[in-house]
């Protein structure tokens, strides 16, 4: 409980000065954006297709089921990922317990050995399953690791956006990041990552946004969701397109799903 207390205390401290201001600060916008992008609903289920394309057009495909649950009392989250394709990773599963302020707990299940292995996860810049997305891109970066500035407001296509600059406080895989955040739903529509030479290295685009409804009657809610996104490595020409299908929120995922049991024996009503 002391850990949780600390988190709440930190959130309280961080929240206090911002509340006094009339206009949202860059950090507030990004907090809302993370909420909309990584924390929507109490939990989520989706089928994820990742298409990895090299500069010469060679394609690889990963298909997985993703289950995600938010801890109602903190910013902690639990993820369960189950791979359907390709053949060499079929039935492989990942379990991630994510903590914004310390290293995640990660486990991998290797089906051929029926083995659950703890994975050392100190470098969140590692590529996620060989894609252009890093682990951090998949589950969100700790906002306090960067200094954020609201540069301007501008239109991106038809959408009114905040443009925010984020500078890492210590070494990261980028030296500067620019984010275009949709004013309407706070989803990131575009992100530009700059490298140590201050050259553009990676570009994220939110290509398709859909409203996903959850609940019935008065409890009915709608969550704007980026169902198609691309990360392109500008330098190598490699890119990864991710599409989410069968997205569902507030499914009522039990905490017991995010345990070793599911790695060895995935919940089949959820992992189809």
């Amino acid at each position, binding site marked *: 409980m002391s850990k949780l207390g600390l988190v709440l205390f930190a959130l309280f401290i961080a929240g206090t000065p911002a509340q006094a201001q009339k206009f949202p600060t860059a950090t507030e916008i990004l907090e809302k954006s993370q909420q909309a992008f990584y924390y929507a609903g109490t939990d989520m289920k989706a089928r994820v297709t990742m298409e990895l394309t*090299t500069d010469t057009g060679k394609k690889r495909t990963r298909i997985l089921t993703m289950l995600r649950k938010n801890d109602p009392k903190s910013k902690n989250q639990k993820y369960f990922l189950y791979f359907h*394709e390709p*053949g*060499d990773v079929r039935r492989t599963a990942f379990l991630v*317990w994510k903590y914004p302020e310390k290293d995640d707990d990660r486990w991998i299940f290797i089906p051929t050995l*029926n083995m659950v292995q*703890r994975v050392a*996860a100190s470098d969140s810049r*590692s*590529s996620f399953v060989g894609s252009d997305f890093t682990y951090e891109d998949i589950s969100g970066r700790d906002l306090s690791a960067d200094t954020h500035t609201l540069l301007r407001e501008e239109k991106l296509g038809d959408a009114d956006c905040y443009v925010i600059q984020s500078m890492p406080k210590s070494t990261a895989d980028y030296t500067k990041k620019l984010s275009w955040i949709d004013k309407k739903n706070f989803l990131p529509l575009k992100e530009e990552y700059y490298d140590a030479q201050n050259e553009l290295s990676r570009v994220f685009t939110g290509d398709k946004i859909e409203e996903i409804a959850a609940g019935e009657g008065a409890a009915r809610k709608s969550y704007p969701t980026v169902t198609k996104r691309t990360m392109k490595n500008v330098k190598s020409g490699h890119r990864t397109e991710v599409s989410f299908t069968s997205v569902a929120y507030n499914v009522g995922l039990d905490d017991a799903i995010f345990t070793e049991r599911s790695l060895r024996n995935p919940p089949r009503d959820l992992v189809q």
Partner: protein
Amino acid sequence: MKHHRGTILALALLGSTVLPAFAADFSFHGFVEGAGGFRVVDNPSISKDATLGEGRLQAELSYQGPKTGRLFLKADVIGDGVEEEGKIDLREAYLDFSPQKVLDVRVGRQILTWGTGDLIFINDLFPKDFVSFYIGRSQDYLKAGSDAVKLSLFPGPFSLDLALVPHFRSSEVPKGERLSTFNPFTNRVTGRREKLSTRAPATNLENTELAFRLYRTFGSYEAALYGFQGFFKEPVGIDPAKRVLSFPELSAYGASLQGPFLQGIASLEFGYYDSREDRSGKDPKIENSSLRYLFGYEQEVWADFTVRAQYFLEEMLDFHAYRASLAAGAPRRKDLRHLLFLRLTHLFRYQTVELSLVAFYSPSDEDAHLKPEASYKVTDNWSVAFGANFFFGKKDSTPFGQLDANDNLYLRLRYSF
């Protein structure tokens, strides 16, 4: 093949009662693989240079119900040029079902794995295939299936795995067939002409092996208790009269703890091996009881580069009784066996290229094993791996020293579907 029949019959019976309720959810996958390997040093006891030369078709069938129940079959059809035979290896064949919300059951041939070690095992007393590891088959073949019933119970605060193995299956260790090995009857390294034979415990109720793991998490830390009653999986008993190796009775008790430490993951595992047929340690034909410790640490040093180090210590109990009873001329072991392990893994080119090195070194046995490997996932279907096994040792009787003349190179090409 006799013991397979019982399993298949049991599966068929279970299947016929459960299957009709299944909704059709059927999947079929597998791979075709060609693998070759050869000795790069002269081996005086084996004339054949080839250590690996086989074509393999693996078929994997899965049939699952809408709520619970799954039938899983995995079999390899192998054309083996080294053994000069064709064979079918039923790798896994089991039925999964959950009769209660807190209970998962798996019945049939299955791979059983637990514990914190990487290629070093204390409380995982299920069969392994070290020969496959030493000749360069894929790591998929490190473990061999057990014919077992496994109950997994999840009452809440902790979890319990209980495995009953009615049919004994040993680990595959070098016996002079593909790899020359130390022969304790002649006290020298021998090959095909004097290959070692083993005698497995009879299949009966009394010999049914039992293994359990009780585990839970404490925050980011995982703790487990283990128990085992059965037999050694390696042939550590010798019967000089009949010139066969045997698998003495073994009980084992242990514990492990694993969790974040510094910038990585640390693990501790302990085991007490009670060699029930030689509790006094006076019988030189049977392995003594021992205490075993394993310390592991893994860290991702930078993106896509991971280092894992392990230190294993085995302390033979009743060492004086062992030494006093040892026959003249027999190799003498030390009371402490130290083993250091290092695994380096580096991924490149969007994780399609993997360079790895696995190294074992024992300062007490003065022997070592090095296994470098490079692999490349050419496409989602095609992959290729190239590697080597190098063995070093001052003495013929130590685990890696006996394999000294078996240094080999290997290549594998696989198409998955």
